[in-house]
C-alpha cells in the first residue's frame, strides 16, 4: 500500500499535509518501537555472552559448585536441573496429553471441555511461586524435608497446562475425514485416536513438549521452597537438589566475584538452552505445517 494518496483539492491542502505528517510520525514511532524492543533483546543477550563466556571452561561441566573463594563449576546444578526437568516433564506430559485428548476427541463441544480450557489457560499464566507454595504445603511439610522430587512435582504442575493447550490445538487441527475413514474401517475409537490422530498431530505435540521443557527449565520460584539447593553433587531425589536457576539466584546475589562469574555463565547456559528449544519447537511446527 503506497503512502501516496491522490492529489488533494487546494482548499484542504494544509489539512492533507497535516494528515501525511501525522502518518509519517506514527509510522516512525512504530519503527522506533520495533527497534526499541529489539534493542533490549540485543542488550540482554550481549550482556549474557559478554559476561558469561569468560567463565566457560571444562570445569563448569565437570565440577560441582564451590564454596566462595574456591574453584568449581556447575555440574551438580546442571544435572539437578536436567533430572528435575526430565521427571517433571515425564509426569506432566502424559496427564497433559490425555487431558488434551479428551478435550479434542471425546468432549469437543461439551461443558467440561469448555471449563477445562478456560481454567487451563489461566493456569498457563498463573504465578509460578504459588505453585511452589502449594507443593511446599502438600509435599515438603509432609515429607519433613526438601527434596528433588518435590521440585520435580512443582515443575510437573507447570508442564501440564502447556501440554494440554498444544495437544488440544494440534488434535483439533487434524481433519475429521481421517478419523471418519479409520472408523469406517471398523477401528475402535481408542485406536483411531492413538494410531491416526496422534500420528497426524505428532509434530505439534512434540512442539508442545519442547515448549514445556523450555518453560520449566528457566523457572526459579517454584524450586525455592521445594528442592531448595545443594552445594554438593547429589542425584538423590529424596534430598535437596541443586538446580541452575536457584544457583544463579544464590550466586548472583552474593558479593563474591567467582560466584558471580559462575552465575553469569550459568545464565548464559540456561538462556541459550531455552532459546534453542524454542527455536527448535518453532522449526518443528513450521515443518509440520507443510
Amino acid at each position: 500500500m503506497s503512502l501516496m494518496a491522490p492529489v488533494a483539492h487546494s482548499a484542504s491542502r494544509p489539512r492533507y499535509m497535516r494528515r501525511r505528517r501525522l502518518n509519517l510520525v506514527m509510522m516512525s514511532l512504530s519503527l522506533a518501537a520495533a527497534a526499541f524492543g529489539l534493542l533490549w533483546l540485543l542488550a540482554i543477550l550481549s550482556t549474557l555472552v559478554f559476561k558469561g563466556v569468560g567463565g566457560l571452561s571444562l570445569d563448569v561441566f565437570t565440577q560441582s559448585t564451590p564454596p566462595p573463594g574456591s574453584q568449581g563449576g556447575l555440574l551438580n546444578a546442571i544435572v539437578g536441573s536436567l533430572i528435575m526437568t526430565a521427571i517433571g516433564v515425564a509426569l506432566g506430559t502424559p496427564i497433559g496429553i490425555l487431558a488434551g485428548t479428551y478435550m479434542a476427541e471425546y468432549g469437543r463441544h461439551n461443558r467440561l471441555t469448555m471449563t477445562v480450557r478456560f481454567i487451563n489457560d489461566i493456569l498457563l499464566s498463573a504465578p509460578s511461586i504459588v505453585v511452589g507454595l502449594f507443593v511446599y504445603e502438600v509435599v515438603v511439610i509432609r515429607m519433613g524435608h526438601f527434596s528433588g522430587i518435590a521440585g520435580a512435582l512443582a515443575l510437573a504442575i507447570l508442564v501440564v497446562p502447556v501440554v494440554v493447550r498444544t495437544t488440544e490445538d494440534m488434535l483439533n487441527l487434524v481433519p475429521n475425514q481421517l478419523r471418519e475413514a479409520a472408523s469406517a474401517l471398523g477401528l475402535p475409537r481408542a485406536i483411531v485416536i492413538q494410531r491416526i490422530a496422534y500420528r497426524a498431530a505428532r509434530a505439534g505435540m512434540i512442539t508442545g513438549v519442547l515448549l514445556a521443557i523450555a518453560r520449566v527449565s528457566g523457572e526459579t520460584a517454584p524450586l525455592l521452597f521445594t528442592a531448595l539447593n545443594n552445594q554438593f553433587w547429589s542425584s538423590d531425589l529424596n534430598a535437596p537438589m541443586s538446580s541452575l536457576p536457584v544457583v544463579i539466584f544464590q550466586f548472583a546475589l552474593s558479593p563474591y566475584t567467582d560466584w558471580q562469574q559462575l552465575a553469569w555463565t550459568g545464565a548464559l547456559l540456561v538462556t541459550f538452552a531455552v532459546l534453542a528449544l524454542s527455536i527448535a519447537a518453532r522449526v518443528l511446527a513450521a515443518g509440520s505445517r507443510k
Partner: protein
Amino acid sequence: MTDASLQAPTLLLQPDAARAGRLRSFRLKDNVFRHLTRASAVTVLGILGGVILALVIGAWLALSTFGIDFFTTESWNPVTEKFGALAPIYGTLATSLIAMLIAVPVGLGIAIFLTELCPPVLRRPVGVAIELLAGIPSIIYGIWGLFVFAPFLQATLQPFLITTFGSVPVLSTIFAGPPYGIGILTAGLILAIMVLPFVTSVSRDVFETVPAVLKEAAYGIGCTRWEVIRRIVIPYTRVGLVGGVMLGLGRALGETMAVTFVIGNAHRISGSILAPGTTISASIANEFTEAVGDLYTSSLIALGLILFIITFIVLAIARLMLLRLERQQGS
C-alpha cells in the same frame, strides 16, 4: 447336500465368537481410554482446586487474626507479629501499572510495524526475535536488571528525573529521593520489557484477522496508513487488544524473579517511584523460607492467595475477551 449345510453354520459360528470377543475387548479398551482421558481433564481442574484449597487453608490463620485490616495496614512487623498486605499490594499494582503504561503503546507499535511497515522477508525474523524476549527466563531479567540496568538508571535516568522534576509541585514527590538505581520504577521498566512480547504477539494476531476488504475500502477513499489503523483496525480488534493487554497484565502481576532482584525489598509505601518497595511475589520469595512463627508463614501464604485471586480475575477477563473475539470471527 446335508454335509455342506451342516458345516456352514459351524463355520459362521466360530468367527462370530472370536469377533464378539475382540469387540468386547475393543469396547473395554475404549471405555478405559475414555475414562482415563476424562480423568486427566478433570485433574486439570483438580490442580486448580488443590492450589486454591491449600492456599486458603494456609492463609486462614492470618486472615482470621487480622480480618479486613490485613488489606489496609502498611506495617509489616515480624517482631510484634503485625502484618499488613498494603505495601506488597501497592508495589505489585504500581510496578504492573508502570509496566503496562510502557508495554502497551510500544507493543502496539511493534505489532503495527510487523503488520504494516515491515518488509515481508523481515517479518518472520523480527517477529521471532520479539518472541524470544518472552522466552528468556525471568531470573535472567533479574540479574541483568541488577547488574546492568539498575546502575545504568542510577547514573542516567534517575538523576535526570530528580533534577528535572525537582521543582514541579506534584511530580517532585513522585520522582524524589536518592537515586538507588533499584526501586519501583526500575522493576516496572523491567516488567515492561518482559510483558512487551505478549502484547505484541496477541496484537499482531488480532490485527491479522481484520478482513482485507475493510482496509482496502479505507485506502480506496484516501486514508493514510495511520488512519486505517486508527479508524478501522483498532476499533475492529478492540476486544482482542484489551484481552492481550489483560494477558500481559496478568503476567506482570505474577512475575517474581525479575522483580525480586531490583525492587529493593522495603515493606513501605513511598510517594516516590524511585524508592524501594516490595511486591507480593518478591515478599514471598524473600521471606518464606525464613518466616518463623505460624502467623508470619500464614501471612505470606495469605499474600500468595491474594496474588492468585488478583491474577485469576485478570486472566479470566482476558480469556473472556479473547473468546468473544473468536466468536466474533466465527472460528
